[in-house]
């Protein structure tokens, strides 16, 4: 073997190693990106499911199939705070549609902790007719309600009982994160990556509020 052949062999080995490292790094980056994208997709799907439920319920504040049982929709909101709300509505409890019996619905945000990996995630509880609380573990990190009167002024929370009738519209602000980190190094807090999705919408408190 000549000296030049050895140089060729060494050079080839170096180049091969360099290419191999590039490939491994690219594969690792691709895997991380795939995990992040999957996390983002799950986060957005969770957000959409939550908002569908919230929009459906909030649209029916003050609604009753038998209007005589809830004659004044402005009295439908029983409790209004920045992270919780309780109101009267008519729910479809058995799949056959609203039954004309006034129901109560109570939304409130649980405390932090207890979630896998994500210490900021909480459970958003939905309580029907004072039954045991049922919540969705979808990584809610923030659930904020802002109340406005007819002049578009913000009503301070918690809203006193005497001012509940003045709530004209409600702004819902919702943040959702993954309950499981998507980064490969999940042990160190600084390396954990949680995808976040944000939603904000203002809704009328009762659709038929005003005599126009």
């Amino acid at each position, binding site marked *: 073997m000549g000296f030049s052949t050895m140089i060729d062999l060494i050079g080839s080995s170096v180049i091969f190693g360099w290419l191999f490292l590039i490939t491994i790094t690219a594969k690792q980056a691709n895997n991380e990106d795939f995990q992040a994208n999957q996390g983002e997709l799950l986060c957005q799907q969770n957000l959409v499911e939550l908002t569908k439920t919230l929009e459906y319920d909030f649209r029916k504040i003050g609604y009753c199939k038998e209007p005589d049982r809830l004659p004044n929709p402005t009295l439908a909101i029983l409790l209004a705070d920045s992270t919780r709300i309780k109101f009267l509505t008519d729910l479809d409890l058995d799949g056959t549609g609203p039954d004309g019996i006034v129901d109560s619905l109570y939304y409130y945000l649980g405390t932090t902790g207890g979630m896998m990996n994500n210490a900021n995630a909480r459970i958003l509880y939905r309580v029907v007719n004072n039954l045991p609380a049922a919540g969705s573990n979808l990584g809610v990190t923030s659930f904020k309600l802002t109340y406005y009167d007819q002049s578009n002024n913000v009503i301070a929370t918690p809203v006193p009982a005497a001012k509940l009738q003045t709530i004209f519209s409600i702004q819902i602000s919702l*943040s959702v994160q993954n309950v499981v980190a998507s980064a490969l190094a999940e042990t160190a807090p600084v390396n954990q990556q949680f995808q976040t999705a*944000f939603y904000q919408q203002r809704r009328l408190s009762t659709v038929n509020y005003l005599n126009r």
Partner: protein
Amino acid sequence: MMSVLAVGMLATVMLTVNTNVQDNNNAVQMSQYRIMASSLATSTIQRATGLAFDQNTVNCNVTSTSSLTAAGALGVETGEIDSVENTFNDFDDYNRFHKWVKGDSIFFRSADFYVHSTVDYVQITGNAIVTSASPTYTKRITVYVSSPYMATDTITASTLYSYWYFR
């Protein structure tokens, strides 16, 4: 020569992988912005439908369409600003409404959005809802939401709003 070809192939593969990664990231971001844009459109529609049907029905009722605002005069009245919703008192004030919704890290954790809307009178012709040149008891608001972060996409939402009152 073979080594050069191999490096060239690897470079091509790397570029393709990076392009796919960037496209996927872009798709994820765009879907987030679209969710927010549709929420803004719905919020605008909700605020509009909470107002009186017409300037002439704010404090009283009307008994004829001739008492409603003329089709060419739909929009803000004197003292109202077309970019400030707080000054609106009736549904058609949202005609030519426009505003920027700026994102921030605290109250609105999203991108910047531009919201504008139009309002017109509508009637049913055949099976279609068409614009009416004269006042009717039904108005239509169309809200457009766009963003520099959504490229050329514009989210459009519309709803009909009819005049009614309790006796």
